[in-house]
């Protein structure tokens, strides 16, 4: 197996653990860290960065090189059967209740205009924290309902914070985002 992992991606910090599990289980595995790009760099839509473009251009040649690398390893004749009870069953709820009541990690973010947000300053309020990305269609899809929720709780102790997962400051996109997010705090 080869894991093709953007060096600036959210999963990058999990790679070491995954790789050591794979190797300990006897599976030959490699990781290729794609420099200077984040997750989904291939989905850059209309505002690819120069690094995104270069990484996308390198992709086809790299895939065939990595495939050649894997050819040297023996492959299993057939896949292992899945254990029968491995698929959890249950009702799907809109929200998943967290009964552990873990303390939320502290958030320290800066928006495009340099305003800082630290969640400590919101202590005592109910916070809805939404991680989204402009290249993620379902994320964009749910924004109007977030705006309606915000309007429903106007002047109440609910603070909605949207965290944009992106690489670089893009003012044009930010202005667009500000418009679609209306008065929701955007970081």
């Amino acid at each position, binding site marked *: 197996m080869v894991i093709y992992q953007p060096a600036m991606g*959210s999963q990058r910090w999990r790679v070491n653990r995954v790789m050591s599990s794979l190797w300990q289980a006897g599976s030959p595995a490699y990781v290729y860290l794609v420099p200077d790009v984040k997750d989904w760099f291939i989905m850059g839509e209309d505002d690819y960065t120069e690094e995104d473009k270069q990484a996308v251009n390198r992709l086809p040649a790299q895939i065939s090189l990595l495939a050649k690398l894997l050819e040297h390893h023996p492959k299993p004749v057939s896949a292992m059967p899945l254990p029968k009870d491995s698929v959890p069953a249950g009702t799907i709820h809109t929200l998943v209740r967290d009964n552990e009541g873990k*303390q939320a990690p502290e958030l320290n973010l800066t928006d495009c205009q340099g305003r800082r947000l630290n969640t400590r300053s919101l202590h005592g309020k109910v916070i809805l924290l939404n*991680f989204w990305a402009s290249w993620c269609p379902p994320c964009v899809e749910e924004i109007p309902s977030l705006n309606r929720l915000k309007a429903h709780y106007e002047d109440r102790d*609910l603070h909605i914070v949207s965290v944009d997962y992106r690489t670089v*400051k893009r003012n044009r996109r930010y202005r667009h985002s500000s418009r679609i997010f209306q008065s929701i705090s955007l970081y």
Partner: protein
Amino acid sequence: MDRDGLTSLAWQVFSFPSSFIIDRQGRIRYSANRAINWDNQEVVQAIDALLAEQ
């Protein structure tokens, strides 16, 4: 913005969108690991209950 991905890591965000609702005491009480309709009854009831807590 989460430029280095470390905020997403701290919150164990592995898919987008991912959302969390945090109570007045700073505890994570609900999460959603997919896009949902945020102004539906279930969400409003959950938030009302959290707002009623001290």
